[in-house]
Every structure is written in C-alpha cells, then in structure tokens.
C-alpha cells in the first residue's frame, strides 16, 4: 500500500515477517515525520473514513532527532489507546532542534550527539477517528529495529524507515 495524499510526502508499507514496516519520504523533516505517521495509520486500518472525528494537537520532546521520531510515534499509539481514536491525517507543524532553528539542525546529518540535555521538540495535529466506527488492527508499538532517518540519497528532502510491532 502507498499513500501520497499530501504534496511533498509519501509512504509505503513494506513486508516484514511478523511486523509491518513503513518507508517514507518528505521534502522536509516535518513532512517525513507526518508521512511515517500516516503509514502507521494505514497499517492500522485499510479503510479510513474521510470525514468523521475531530482534530487534536500534540507535542513531543526528545534528546535526538531519531528519538523524537520514536517518541512521536509512541505518543500516537498511546493517544490511540487512551482516546479510543485512531489518529489519521497527520500534520507536523513544527520541529525545533536544540540549535537555533530547524534548518540548521536538518543539515547536520546524522550527528545527534550535541548537548544531551538539549531537547528536540515537535508540534503536530491529527484527526482522531473513533475506534468504534472502524475496523482497526492493533499496532502494538514502534520499534528502533532497522530504523533509519536520513537525508535522501539525492540530497533533496528526507527518508525514513520504521518497523512497527503488530
């Protein structure tokens, strides 16, 4: 399955024996994060209804770029269980790095060492579709297994690969 509903971002569900993997691309870090989250929603439900459910916002902080992606997806799974809603149509409004602004951080590539106390942060929104209205399968957790978050090979935008436990 693929999804490229929003311009500048796309995801693909990949085969993994016991689990499900999402491969995603985005013009910006924000868009690749949202694309992975859309992949998580698609892995949870084959047929997401268009209209139902209210949008809500969330924010996440973490100590590195990869950890921020992990914690963002972990938070979405947590919110699904406590809100009884499947978060869909993800928008990541803003990602801030510990350095001055997002752009600087985005260029530093894979070096996430920096100041361990400094936080990366993210502001996002999603639409919450009540679980009672859909056939959804439980994605248990996000994993670090084989996780990749890096500059696209052509230097344009970002690529991510995340395995989910189902």
């Amino acid at each position, binding site marked *: 399955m693929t999804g490229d509903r929003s311009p500048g971002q796309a995801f693909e*569900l*990949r085969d993994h*024996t016991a689990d499900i993997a999402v491969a995603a691309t985005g013009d910006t870090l924000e868009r690749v994060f949202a694309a992975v989250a859309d992949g998580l929603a698609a892995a949870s439900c084959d047929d997401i209804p268009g209209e139902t459910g209210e949008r809500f916002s969330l924010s996440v902080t973490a100590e590195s770029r990869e950890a921020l992606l992990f914690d963002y997806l972990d938070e979405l799974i947590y919110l699904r269980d*406590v809100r009884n809603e499947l978060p869909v149509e993800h928008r990541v409004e803003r990602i801030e790095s510990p350095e001055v602004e997002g752009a600087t951080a985005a260029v530093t590539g894979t070096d996430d060492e920096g100041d361990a106390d400094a936080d990366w942060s993210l502001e996002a929104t999603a639409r919450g579709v009540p679980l009672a209205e859909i056939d959804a399968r439980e994605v248990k*957790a996000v994993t670090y297994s*084989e996780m990749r978050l890096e500059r696209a090979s052509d230097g344009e935008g970002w690529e991510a690969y995340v395995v989910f*436990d*189902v």
Partner: protein
Amino acid sequence: MSESTFDADGITLEKVRDYVWEIPQEGDMRVPARVLASEPLLEEIKDDKTLEQIKNTTHLPGITNHAICMPDGHQGYGFPVGGVGALDAENGCISPGAVGYDINCGVRMMRTNLTYDELQGREAELVDSLFANVPSGLGGGGIVEAGIDAVDEILARGVDWALENGHAVEEDLLHCEDEGMREGADPDKVSQKAKDRGKNQIGSLGSGNHFLEVQRVTDVFDGDVGEAYGLEEDQIVVLIHCGSRGLGHQTCNDYLRKIEQQHQGLLNQLPDKELAAAPAGSQLAEDYYGAMNAAINFAWVNRQLIMHRTRQVFERVFDRSWQEMEMELLYDVAHNIAKKESHDVGGEQRELYVHRKGATRAFPAGHPEVPKAYRDVGQPVIIPGSMGAGSYVLRGGENSMDLTFGSTAHGAGRLMSRTQAKDEFWGGDVQDQLEEQEQIYVKAQSGATVAEEAPGVYKDVDEVVRVSDELGIGDKVARTFPVCNIKG
C-alpha cells in the same frame, strides 16, 4: 554443502548433532549461537533475518553458553522471535528488547468434561456468544472497568486480585506459574502512561494473532501424562492466547528509551538498538525487572478474566454450572518473559536472567519450580497452532535443562508477512472454507485479521513439535483441533 554444515546465504551452520546447529563464534560474538531445527525448518528460517538476529543476540554481555533459536524461530526486532538468551544476573544484563513488547504474552488452557458430540450443533451459538462477551479488537474495552488504584493492585498481586474480586477460584492459582503472582513486582516502576493504557483493557484479547479457541482433543500420545493433565480424546478444551496489552507495550518502550538515555555506552557495543539492555545490578535493571514482573501479573489477570468470562458463557449456552462442566485451568504459560532462574552452568549453579521471547519454559519432571500438581510428570507446555491447524500440549522434556535452559518452542511461527497474506487470502473465503471443510467456526472483528492469520501463513506446527519431541526438550502429550475461534 557437506552433510555436517548448512549454508544459509553467507552464514554457515555446523551440525552438532541431529536438530542442533551451531553458528561458530566470530568477531564480537561472546558465545556461539545455536539453532534447533530440522533441515526443512532451517530452509524457512534462513529466508529472513532470524539467523543474523540470533547472532546479534550473542553480543549481549553475560550471555551464557549460547544464544538459542527454537524450531519455530522467525525474524523479530532485535532478538528473534523464538529466541532464548540466558544472561548472567550478576555480571550480565537484562534486555527489555529480548523480552518483547508484549510482556507475558502467553497461553492458557482450560479443560472441560464436555465431549465434541455434546458441542456439535451448538458451535454457531457458542462462537457468537463468546464473541459478544469477550472483548476483542482495538478499542473494545475490557471485562472490568477499573481505576488506577485497581490497576496498581493488579500489578502488585496478580491473580490474587482476581480471586478477591470474584473472577477466580483458589484452584486457578494452583495451576498457574508462580501461583499467578510474580514476586518482586513493583507497580511504582510502571509509568502513568502505561497504567492509563491498561485501565481500559483489563480482560481483553486485543488483535493480531491473539485469540480464544474452543478445541477438541484429537490425540493423546502419552496416556499417563495425559491422565495427569486431565486430557482424553474427544474432550473439549479452551485455549486463550493474549498478553499484557497496551500496559506491557508501553512499559517495554518506556524502558528502551531509558536505557538509551542512561546506558548509551552499553548500547553502542550492540549491533541492534532493539537489543538495548540495562547492566545487571544497575538501578535501571532493578526498575525494569520490577516493572516487567508487574506487567506479568497484569497479563495473568487479563487471561484469568477472559477464562472466567468464558465459564459464564458456557454456563449460558449449555445451561449448567461451570463446576458441573469441570471447567478447570490446566496451565498458563508465558512466551515473552525474562525470569531470574538458577541454572547449572559447567557444574556451577548460576543466577541467570533467562529471556524467552517466543519461547516457552519447559521444566522437566522433578524440578522444584513445577507446580506440585504436575511435578511428577513435568510442566505442561501449550503450543498454539494457527486457526486451521492443531495445537499441542507438551510436557517439559528431560533434556531441556541441558540444551535450552529449560525452554522449548511457542507456536507455529509466521512464514509470511501480513501484507503478503492479505494479497494471497481474503478473510471471507478463509472463514467460509474453515467452516465448510473443517467445521471450524471463526468470528473476528476484522476480515483483514482473518486473512492475515490464515492457516497458510504459518509454519507447520507438526514439524516444530516433532523437533521439540525428538530433542527431548518438550515431549508430545496431546493434540487438539479448533472448533470455534474468536479474534480481534
């Protein structure tokens, strides 16, 4: 390829003896890795990353003797599913990734005195009633709605809480590992987030490969042990497969992240971040062990509530009391767990954190940790098959302590990814075929789940069990075949 080696696309396995293969120690491996399998199973195992993952597991500090892959092994995340790793509890580590997200995912079997004849003709009614009364799927709620106080009680006391609240009888505790209460459980080490997820899910199956199945016993291979387990041909039994739900998943992730933040040095030595481990003796290792033990209790209560609810459903359908139908717990096994156990290592007793991820404890006759009821014959081991194939009851084999730290397989093991399964099967067809050809009544929240769990996506459970039996790590006692199956 000579007779004594098996070439798995770049990894060469050396045959130690029948069904025992070894990947020799090289590079940063601390010990060799072992795979317990027949050649047909090895052909399947080599097709994904299982072998690479079991090799990676040997990098964990304190790993003792070998990292071992069971006959049903398949690719997981970090540690393979079907993996056993015994890590030294003094100088080694404990690894949340090697336990898995679904802490104390496991299986229990309940006996009845009903025969298949008595049930025939009632399957549709029974499957509908079970489906209506046992919460499953995402957002289906739980059998009890509890506040955080009750969650804390469950985490601390396990099935004892269920007993006090009318969801269990004394006998249930006596037929559960640790009598349904893990010592050293520390509810304070389970995060608020995990408890928030758990409180709406107490007594719920979840989805994916979790299910409740009414089965008939088709074969008893070992009459004496069968008798000790109260199993005979044609008898109806109930199998329940589920775990600690969101509470366990969250607990695993909470600790993976803490390890990343606090033990980066150890993490950097490991080839896969999902193997994240806390050094034995560290505060975090203690905290995780306390939290994991609490999640173990939660999962036991989860399966207990579902079992007790099933008794009530049977009472309604068959119009007699569950006591009259002798609906008693046979045993409950965990297959995602780490336990501090004492093992003989080269003639010396050592304390080890035995991690079993997709592997089942299989202690033999006479072991002091086997409940009294079964100590003379060995611990029951329950191996669920797919919904179109049989399941098995084994008993802990006498070679298990020497070969596998007292462990055997946990199920059939997946062969095919979920996406591929959905391309190959359609849920409705699978369901109709099972009902028409096999008289198996399936009811699921989602057709996709039925397709993803179609019998064809699993390894041959018969072959997995045959290898376990041949190795003497888990001996065949009885086989069962599905009658009704409900899932998320």
